């Protein structure tokens, strides 16, 4: 069990060591060690970005550059985003010039620490962009690992691009929590759930559709409401109010 508290998460919450988190830890370690590519895909809100960020931040001696693109970007846009991510300064110049500078910036022999490039929302990429990423990764001078993260459709994009699919060294699929997984994980997520009935957890999981991001919203709301009411333990009314504030009424 991870004991550290995740900053963006509700007060009192802890990082839950889900199967996906453990797989991410293993997969990310592998691709960083071998400078390979890995895919972290699945339903939105199931913790892909959080898991990769979390694990990457805990890895020592690793530089991480996060990239996120507009939908179906051009190669020029892609190269600018990469440049700005790498150098933390506005990108100017032609695509070829940017490419040249990016290659320089990605050189393994110019870096003190290994580099992980994390591409978020990869479902937005088109064939040209994927080809460009492959080119950067294959280049003899460069040496970095790449994590490709994406929600619905991301794996579809990867699967349709053989040159990218064949380079995927690790793949972790994130899925909504099943009821069994919710019962196993949620009590560890926050102390307020430790003594509640299984039925309540199952009801909430149904409303959250097993999506962790929804669980975080519910928990954050409950923390606030309990503070307002000065409650030590969850009660039915508070949970009911929280769900009404968050979920669409049937």
């Amino acid at each position, binding site marked *: 069990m991870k004991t550290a508290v995740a900053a963006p998460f509700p007060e009192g919450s802890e990082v839950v060591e889900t199967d996906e988190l453990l797989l991410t830890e293993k997969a990310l370690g592998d691709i960083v060690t071998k400078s390979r590519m890995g895919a972290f895909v699945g339903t939105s809100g199931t913790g892909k970005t959080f898991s990769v960020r979390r694990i990457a931040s805990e890895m020592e001696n690793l530089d991480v550059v996060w990239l996120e693109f507009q939908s179906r970007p051009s190669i020029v846009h892609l190269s600018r985003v990469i440049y700005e991510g790498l150098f933390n300064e506005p990108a100017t110049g032609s695509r*070829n010039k940017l*490419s*040249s*500078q990016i290659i320089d910036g990605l*050189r393994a022999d110019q870096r003190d620490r290994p580099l992980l490039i994390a591409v978020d929302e990869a479902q937005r990429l088109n064939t040209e962009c994927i080809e460009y990423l492959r080119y950067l990764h*294959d280049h*003899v*001078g460069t040496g970095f690992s790449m994590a490709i993260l994406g929600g619905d459709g991301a794996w579809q994009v990867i699967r349709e691009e053989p040159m990218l699919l*064949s*380079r995927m060294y690790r793949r972790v699929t994130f899925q909504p929590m099943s009821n069994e997984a919710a019962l196993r994980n949620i009590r560890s997520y926050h102390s307020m759930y430790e003594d509640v009935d299984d039925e309540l957890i199952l009801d909430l999981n149904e409303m959250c559709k097993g999506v962790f991001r929804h669980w975080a919203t519910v928990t954050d709301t409950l923390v606030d409401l309990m503070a307002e009411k000065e409650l030590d333990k969850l009660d039915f009314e508070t949970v009911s109010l929280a769900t009404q504030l968050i979920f669409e009424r049937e």
Partner: protein
Amino acid sequence: MNPKDERAPAGAEPLAFFLGDSPDRVSELNSLHDPKAGAVVVHLAPRGGRERLDVSVLQAMGHTNETSGWSQLGAETRKTLRHWVKALGVRHVFFYPAEELDRKSLTQLSGFESVQIWLPTRRNGQLAAQKARFGAGPGSFRTAKKRLKQDHLKAKENREIYSLINNRAADWPEDPWTARTNVLSSGDAITYANFDSRWQDAFFATQHELENMPRWEPQIPRWIRMVAADRDGQISPGAYCGIWAAFAAKGIELSNPPIEVVGSPLRSPDLSGFEKASCIDEALVYGLSKAGLCLVEIAHLRAQQVSCRGGVRICGIEVAGSLADVIETAYNRTIDPMRPFAWHTRLVGELWPDGGHMYERFKQMYRYYCMGYARFQEGKITGLMIKPGKTLESSDEAPMPWVHPAEIKPDSRPQKPLAELVPNLPAAYLTNPLRRDEVQTIQRILRQTPTPKKMTAQAIDERDDISTLIERHYVEIKGGTSRVRSSVRHSLGYPVSGDIDVLHTSMWNTARSENGEMIVIQQPPDVPLEMIAPRTRAALAGETVQPLSYSWSKREWNEVAG
């Protein structure tokens, strides 16, 4: 196997083959990439159009815009690439995927005449089309690997020389071509200064003598020893690389030469009464010649190769007797510092009170001075010119008479005058003696100059010769070398050998001393016989010539020398 696959790389047509797109195949292709072994794998950007293929190749060879510094100008970059291709002995270049290669960009590459271009394609269906587009012959991945293996062995063999000389192999540069740049890129300023100082002296000395060297091979071991040895007898990596570069610039591969150890101690001729000589140089040159050194070796002897502590040694060779006294006297004399370019005033730097190599440092300071300036301008100055014929004596044009202001193009970045970058650089340094406080100023300036890594940016892309990885205008004191040569030639006008006198001599076309390594005296070209010294004329006529005495007066010298 197709017979074409076995052709020599020189002038060979491109060879195309299907590689595929799988990571394993690409990884296998990348494993062939070893620029120092002559193989470069260039990955082409998708839909790059007419991308800067020269830049792509340079990047693949490990050079970055930031550290190796090539101009954004196409012609300059292509020149830089041509130099590196030659310098590293690149023989195989793979452009992958060939589908992305632009034919026009490929034809614009220069210096690839001896390079085998390989065109691996990503898709099998594209192979025929690419063959037709580039006029490529059929190749195969297997053939490529086989060729590379053969060539790699040759390259490895060539590099083994470094471990054969000296016992300090760890300090030895891996590649003499790139050693100077490597030191520039990775060493500190003083390390580079010391390395480059030896490199340049050895380079120019060798280059100068090579011009008149019909049969160089027998003399190489000794030449390397005498030019590249430090005062402790160790071969200086910088000097050796300079010699290597001078040979290579002439198209001679200095491969695996033995390094001759001169007999120790040197013979000690009788030089009693040397103090009566009109000039200590006469006794010095005479004595060294009698001891067995060639005139050319004497001419290129440097103060850094002389040690007078705990006995006198030259290049680590012990010297005894009155010759040692002469050397010590010469070494410790007061030199006229207004003659900084005469060969023997190279001793000057060693004689300053701090015991450092101030003359060499001074030269380095000037180099850094120029390079730092160029770097400071972020490579925007295309016309950092040094006026032809200007020398460091041009003290009336302070502070930087060698820059044409009109050549400096406007830059959006603020430009500092050179005087601000290196403050208070008195042009008087150029001709006046260095004082202690000035020495400290030089050291301060050296500390203030940019790091060597940054200096490379502008310095390298202006070079105009394969042997000068740093453009010579930046690193050479204009006119200095020719003055040294002139002085050397002048000094060699003295009769110095015990057998014959020597006029306009050089190691390669004249001399055979009593030690056997020199002297076949020849009439210098374009010199009328009557202008040659009587003793030389007699020697040319086959007459027996009595040995000269070093202690003749200047007037007597002049009489004999005609």
